Structure formats: structure tokens, C-alpha cells
């Protein structure tokens, strides 16, 4: 057993449900107790979804516990089949079903005999994988299912399209800025003269999946979901894929260079010409994206050497680290991810770019690390935003887990050239707000907040402050207040001072500023 207050990635079934409900006309049936259909609420509220979430529970109650599900799961499947005529029903196991160890595959086999819809059992193990891994696996499973079938029925069209084309794999609900990223990618492809063959799973129809292999190549914008599908398509259908995330100027340039390479493999034979994207990249970098100019401008000069801490999923944390260090000259003291399963690759990505690497699923560890480093800005998830609030450090949200405010109505991609603009704004605003705050503190400004104890770790210091000493730090500007308080407490501990008086405080100050 593990004591846990908060988690970054959800349980496995959430990943399966996210993929299933992203496809068009796919219904997921959860084998779960009452109340576990919480996914519907999340999707309906965070994405402001207009349509009923196609997820139903086959409710596990006392009777199921006593006698097994028996006909219940099958009845639920056939009922959904009749009511809503989905193309596919995905039976989704939850932690409950994994403990009950019912033969769900058997239910699927029996239900598919009578139902019009296809029925499959999501092949995810609750104990072994988290939300993201399960999503990756389920996507691959569905693609494999339909391609294998098309091959068996010999309706698979394996000829590549006449003009260059690509599949975008891994856009799904409710992903962090996924919808905007998808639009930006489509625009990018349009400008490169590459058609988008299919986007999966978001908005994809299963009947078109058989045409997936017609694309010249695949792209996987986010490492967490889509890689399994891309490797499957490469192995079975010889489709190359690009797994570079086009986030930031240099990554986007690399991404386009890769596309150029893959397009030219076929272009010469099919179009009798070679495509060159170099000029396009130059032009975009100089004029469409403002980020390159921004990093040369005086604004960005002021950021040079400032410290930042980064935490998020592997894709976003690694890309943002790279942008901050290489494109803006900001010092990243700590970069981390909760994608433990992808730790090796993450380490490789941020190698040499940051002071320390944190790979953990424990938010208190992240919080303590940030509190120790005291960076000028944090880039993280909603959790880090709240950590930042408590210790007065601004935070830009760059990755899921997300909140409704991370589903903006306006256009906010993180990918492509428009993405670089958005990210530059986000970064600059985070740092700038922090500095504004500090300058108003320096001039005694409008600071009426009580002073907080700054410590985030659970083992609170047991040092007392006398009331006079307590009020003393209020006269110090906010941005150094935390550090001074901490230094004083450390000094008190080292010198066995049980209670901090004003004298002790100034003694500590003298010691630390020789």
C-alpha cells in the first residue's frame, strides 16, 4: 500500500476510454461499480462536450460479486448495439474487473455473435500500466484489429497516394491543447504540400482505417500516445514514422527536415521532382514565428540566466526544457517528468540541458525540489501551478493533468510556428509577472499578504519565532523573504537556538552575508 494524496496519470481504463470516445461512433462499456463512470463528467466539463459521452457502465454490484456478471455484460452490450448502433463496442476492464478476474473475453466472444457492432476487449492490465500507456495500447489494438480484418477480406488498398500524405497519430480527447495542435499541424502540412491522410483517433471513422497504409508516412506528435501504433504500422506495412515533436523553433525545423527526407524518398519517383523545405523553414522562422526575433530582443535578454524548474509529461517537459535553454538562454535548474516508463528517453533528451533530472510520480517530491531550488518561474502541470501559488513563484502550465482553463476557446497551439509564439508569450508572461511583483515589493508597494512559512515538506520545522521577529521579515521584499526565513531557521538549528528573536535573525543575516 502506498500513501497518496495526488496522482499525475490516471488509472488504465481512463486511457482506453479516452481513445474509444475519440473515434466516431465507438462505444465503450466499462465493467465497473456505480460511480466509476466519472470519465463522462470529466469529458463533458473540461472539453465542454456537446454530445453524450459514448461510455456506459455494466454496473458491478453485490449480485455480480456473488454470482458473477453472467448475462449482465452481454445484455449491456446488445442493448447498446440496438440503441445506438455503434461501429465498435470496446469492453473496458477496470481495477474491479481485474480483481474479480471474470472471463471478459468470453463475454466479448459471445456478444459479438449476436451484435451488429464489432466487439473487442481492451487489452490493458490495470496494475501494470497507467492512463497514457493504456491509451497507447488501446489505439494500437483497434488499428491492428481493423487492418488485420481488411487484409483478411482483401479490401486493403496498399498503394500509396499520388501526392505526399501523412497520418497524424495520437490526437485525442481530452488532451492538452490537442485540438489546436491538430489544426496547426494540418496547416503546416498544407504549406508543405503534404496532404493529411487521416487523423486518429480524434474524429476518425473506423471504416476509413483500411486506408491508413496509403499515407507516405506517419507522425506521432506526442510520445505518450501513438508510438505503439506507429511501430506496428512500420513493422507490418513498412510505413516510416517521425516521432519528433514539432514544439519550439529548432524542433519544428528538425521535424520539417525529417518530412523532407521521407517525402523525397517517393517524390522523385512519383512526382519527378525533389522538394526542398529549407527556404520555407527560413521564412517561417524569421517572419511567421516571432519567437526567434523575440529571443534576440531586449526583453529576452533580461531573462538570460534566470532559473526555471520544469515538470510535466515526457513530451512537453523535454521540449520546453530545450526551448528555454537553447532558444531563450534561461537556466533550467531542474527538469522532470512523471512518465516513469519513458525515463530513459527523457534523460537522453534533457541531458546536459538542466541541473538535475527528476523522474517521479510523487508530487510532494516535486514540490520539495521546487521549494529547495526557488526558481524564478515554474513550468509544469496544474499541480505545479498550485505549488507555485503557495510559495509565490509564477507558473506556466505546459502539460496535463489539466483543468478546464487549459481548454481555451481561443486558438492556442503548442506545436508548429504559431505554437512557438504561444509558448514565447507563456514564458515571458510568467517571468515578467514575477518581476513586476518583486519590483512592487521593493518599493513597499501593495503587499498586504501575511507571510507564509514557505516550507512545503511535511516535516515542518519546529522552530518558534517570537512575534517581533515574525513581523520582521515583512519589511523585506517578498522575493527574498522566503530565502531569508529559511536561512535564519537553518542558522538557528545549527547553533541550537530554540527561538528566533530579532537578534538571532540579524546574527543569521550577518553570517550569511560575510
Amino acid at each position: 500500500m502506498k500513501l497518496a494524496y495526488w496522482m499525475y496519470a490516471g488509472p488504465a481504463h481512463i486511457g482506453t476510454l479516452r481513445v474509444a470516445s475519440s473515434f466516431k461512433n465507438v462505444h465503450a462499456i466499462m465493467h465497473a461499480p456505480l460511480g466509476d463512470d466519472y470519465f463522462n463528467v470529466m469529458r463533458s466539463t473540461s472539453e465542454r462536450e456537446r454530445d453524450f459521452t459514448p461510455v456506459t457502465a455494466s454496473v458491478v454490484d453485490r449480485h455480480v460479486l456473488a454470482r458473477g456478471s453472467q448475462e449482465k455484460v452481454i445484455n449491456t452490450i446488445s442493448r447498446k448495439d440496438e440503441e445506438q448502433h455503434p461501429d465498435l463496442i470496446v469492453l473496458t476492464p477496470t481495477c474491479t474487473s481485474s480483481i474479480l478476474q471474470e472471463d471478459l473475453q468470453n463475454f466479448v466472444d459471445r456478444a459479438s455473435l449476436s451484435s451488429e457492432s464489432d466487439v473487442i476487449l481492451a487489452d490493458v492490465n490495470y496494475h501494470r500500466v497507467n492512463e497514457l500507456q493504456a491509451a497507447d495500447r488501446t489505439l494500437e489494438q483497434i488499428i491492428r484489429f481493423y487492418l488485420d480484418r481488411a487484409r483478411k477480406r482483401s479490401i486493403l488498398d496498399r498503394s500509396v497516394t499520388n501526392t505526399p500524405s501523412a497520418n497524424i497519430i495520437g490526437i485525442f480527447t481530452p488532451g492538452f491543447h490537442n485540438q489546436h495542435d491538430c489544426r496547426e499541424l494540418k496547416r503546416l502540412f498544407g504549406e508543405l504540400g503534404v496532404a493529411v491522410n487521416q487523423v486518429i483517433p480524434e474524429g476518425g471513422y473506423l471504416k476509413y482505417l483500411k486506408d491508413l497504409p496509403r499515407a507516405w508516412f506517419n507522425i506521432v506528435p506526442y510520445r505518450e500516445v501513438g508510438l505503439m501504433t506507429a511501430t506496428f504500422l512500420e513493422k507490418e506495412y513498412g510505413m516510416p514514422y517521425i516521432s519528433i515533436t514539432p514544439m519550439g523553433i529548432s524542433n519544428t525545423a528538425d521535424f520539417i527536415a525529417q518530412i523532407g527526407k521521407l517525402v523525397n524518398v517517393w517524390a522523385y519517383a512519383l512526382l519527378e521532382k525533389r522538394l526542398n523545405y529549407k527556404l520555407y523553414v527560413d521564412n517561417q522562422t524569421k517572419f511567421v514565428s516571432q519567437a526567434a526575433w523575440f529571443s534576440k530582443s531586449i526583453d529576452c535578454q533580461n531573462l538570460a540566466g534566470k532559473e526555471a524548474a520544469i515538470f510535466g509529461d515526457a513530451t512537453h517537459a523535454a521540449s520546453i526544457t530545450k526551448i528555454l535553454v537553447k532558444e531563450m538562454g534561461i537556466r533550467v535548474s531542474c527538469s522532470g517528468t512523471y512518465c516513469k516508463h519513458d525515463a530513459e528517453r527523457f534523460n537522453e533528451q534533457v541531458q546536459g540541458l538542466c541541473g538535475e533530472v527528476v523522474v517521479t510520480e510523487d508530487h510532494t517530491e516535486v514540490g520539495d525540489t521546487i521549494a529547495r531550488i526557488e526558481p524564478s518561474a515554474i513550468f509544469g502541470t496544474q499541480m505545479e501551478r498550485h505549488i507555485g501559488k503557495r510559495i509565490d513563484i509564477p507558473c506556466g502550465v505546459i502539460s496535463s493533468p489539466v483543468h478546464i482553463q487549459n481548454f481555451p476557446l481561443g486558438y492556442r497551439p503548442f506545436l508548429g510556428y504559431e505554437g512557438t509564439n504561444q509558448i514565447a508569450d507563456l514564458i515571458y508572461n510568467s517571468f515578467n509577472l514575477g518581476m513586476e511583483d518583486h519590483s512592487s515589493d521593493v518599493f513597499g508597494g501593495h503587499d498586504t499578504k501575511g507571510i507564509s512559512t514557505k516550507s512545503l515538506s511535511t516535516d515542518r520545522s519546529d522552530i518558534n519565532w517570537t512575534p517581533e521577529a515574525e513581523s520582521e521579515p515583512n519589511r523585506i521584499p517578498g522575493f527574498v523573504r522566503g530565502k531569508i526565513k529559511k536561512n535564519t531557521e537553518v542558522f538557528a538549528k545549527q547553533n541550537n537556538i530554540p527561538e528566533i528573536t530579532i537578534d538571532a535573525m540579524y546574527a543569521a543575516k550577518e553570517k550569511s552575508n560575510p
Partner: protein
Amino acid sequence: MKNSDIPTFECETGNYHTFCPISCVAWLYQKIEDSFFLVVGTKTRGYFLQNAPGVMIFAEPRYAMAESEEGDISAQLNDQKELERICLRVKSDRNPSVIIWIGTCTTEIIKMDLEGIAPKLEKQIGIPIVVARANGLDYAFTQGEDTVLAAMTHRCPDFTPRVMNQQKGDVAKLVASPGDKFFDGKIGLNRCSLVLFGSLPSSVASQLNLELKRQSISVSGWLPSQRYNELPALGEGVYVCGVNPFLSRTATASMRRRKCQLVGAPFPIGPDGTRAWIEKICLVFNVKPNGLEERENQIWKTLTDYLEIITGKSVSFMGDNLLEISIARFLIRCGMVVYEVGIPYMDRRYQAAELLLLQQTCRKMRRPMPRIVEKPDNYSQVQRMHELQPDLAITGMAHANPSEARDIDTKWSVEFTFAQIHGSANARDAPELVTRPLRRKGDSLSDCRSLSRQTLDVQQS
């Protein structure tokens, strides 16, 4: 819709959306200040808990998960040792006065003996451990609170005459304020003790105390109390009365196990409910109610602006929190027509007085008796709603946005559990919630009605 006066109950498939009962943690840990709630279960429950109470998690809540891992499920790890390790950590981090273990579906399925382990660990670590099985196999949403409070009735001190005398002393002190003419000489009637159960914000609880004090009835305690060690005394001679309709197990536990007497009353929701609630308590304590009618009329007068909006409008409850009957009764009294009352579970004995008041209200207001659907089926309910086109649907968040897109105004049902809707003083809060979707109508968008993407779906149904 039934026109007869006898309520009929239907029962559907139970395929409806509601919150997992462990969500009670989110409000109970705030109510009981010195408690710590430990939810024993899997990641699924933790994920729910961190998403449902939203940002509350960031305020260093006094609740956490004891997350079972594969080793726990296959019994490779010893439950007692694992829980001991975790509880010791909680003790050193937060030092609570009580740890409440919330059993979940997981602990039910693997038959983890929480009730057996708790007394042993309690001795070992020196903190009381209360076990509540608030799982989704048996219960829905607010029933979670019921399981916790029922478990707590066992921890309430015994009611003894000494305690009673002391309480009388307390009452005397309270009454001593000069100029309070209601109380003069009436204390003598109040021989028995009255304990109210149900978790309410402390301001609402003291408003209800005050309402009863006006009738010279003093409340000797609340279950739950603000702090664990202030739990009220229970025992023979104690009258208990519920303030919420989902507390039937707590009622049963205090009657059967603690020999208390239950005052079966409608619930103090709406001015009509509050008056009926007070009247019933007065009846039991043999007190002649004083000025209740004028007070109710006064409150109704303050609601005039809302009543103008909702009179004659229709409403359907999809059902997810067990407050449905009381709110429906209040809304019918406000002049609304209720088509359907979905409800997860209907305890006809515990809610008998409330059901009777519903019947009387329907007759008085000349409204048809609504259809009461236990364990509803959300899919069928949505179909029915397309047919009946109510002016308002009171429903969970999973259905709210899709219904709005299909041009059915909705109110999110969970808000009723967190809003302060009890007592006369809060009578405006419920109609405030109900009228919100009806008030915000703008004309500018009236030419694009349905905003659903799946137009097909609507036609099919």
C-alpha cells in the same frame, strides 16, 4: 404521469450516473476539523477523488488514499502491517484526533477485514479508527455520509442523567439572555435530549438550532460535531432527528444500537419543509408551536421574485443524490410541475413523513403526483426527456452540457448538496439555483436553438 394521490414507485435498471460515495470525504473532512480520512482502495478511486472535489486537494486536505498495489490484492503483503505503516505516517504528519477508514469496492471484493483490523491498530497507535464502507457496490453519492455517520453513532458517548443535567445547565445558560420571552419557564418541559444528525455547515446548523430555540427546544448535540471529541451523547431517552433524506442507516443505527427514538419528520428544506420539521419536533416534545405560520408566510413573501419565474414551469429530476423528493416537494409548493423524480434509493420508512408532505403538497397545489423512479436508467430518462421537453432538467454533469446543447435547460444536481438549502433563512438558495438557467436566457442567440453536433441522435429518439 400519474394523477392519483398515492405515490407509485418504479424501479429501472440502475444504469445511472452518480458520484462514488467516497466523495463524502470531500465535505466531511472539512466538517470534522480534527479528522483524517483514509480511503483504502485503488487508483481509480484516488483519481475520482482528486477530480471531483477539484481544487480542494491543493489546500493540504486531511484526506489521502491508501493505494492498494498488486501485492495487496494478491495478499502477498499483510494488510494490517501496511495499514499500520500508513497510519503511523499520518499520525506523525497530521496528528488527527480520529482516522476514518473509507472502505471501497476494492476492499469489499478482496474482503479486507477493515473492521477487524481497526480495533487492533487503534490500540497500537492510540488514535480512534472509525471504519465506514462507502463503496459503489452498495451505495450512491451522499449515502457515503450515511455510512460514516452510522459508524460514528457507535463512538458517541453514552447518555446518562449526569450528562443530561449538565446539558440542562448549558441550556439554562443559553436561555439566560434577557428579553428572550419565548423561553420563560418552559425548560421544565424539555426533559429529553434532542440530537440532530446530518453534516451541515456550522452556520446552517446554528440557524436550525436557533429555529428550535424559538420554540424553546434546545438541541443537545449534532452528529457529526465540529470536532471528533465533541460527539453528542446517545442512548435511551435521546430523541434523534435527521436533517437530510439520505441518512437512513444512521437513523437505523441510532435507533437499534443506541436505543434512541427517531423523530420522523419531513426535512427542513424550503420554508414548508422547515415548518413541518419544526412542527413535528414540537409535537414530539409536547410544545405548542409558536408563530410558525407567520414566519413561513414571511419567508414565502421574500421568494416572490423567484416564484414569478418558476410558477407553471416543468422540471425532471434524473436522480443522483437522494435530495430529490424534498426538493421536488419544495418546487411543487413553489408552483412548478414535476414530471419525474429519479432517485438512487428510496427508504420509504425513513422518508415517510416527507412522502406524505409531498402528497399533501400536490393536492394543495393541484399538481399531479410525479413519477418516482428508483435506480433510474439514464438512457431511458434522456428519451423520456426528449418526449416531455421539461423546462428544466436537474441532472449530473455528465448529462448537463449535452442536454443544454439539445436545448433542455439544466441545473447541475451536485450543487444542491453543497449549497446551503436548509432552514428558513436559506430558503432563497434552492430557488436561486433552480432559476439560474431560466434567468440567464438571452434573446440574441434565439435563432440557433439546438447546438448539438449529433442532430441525428435527437431525431432518432
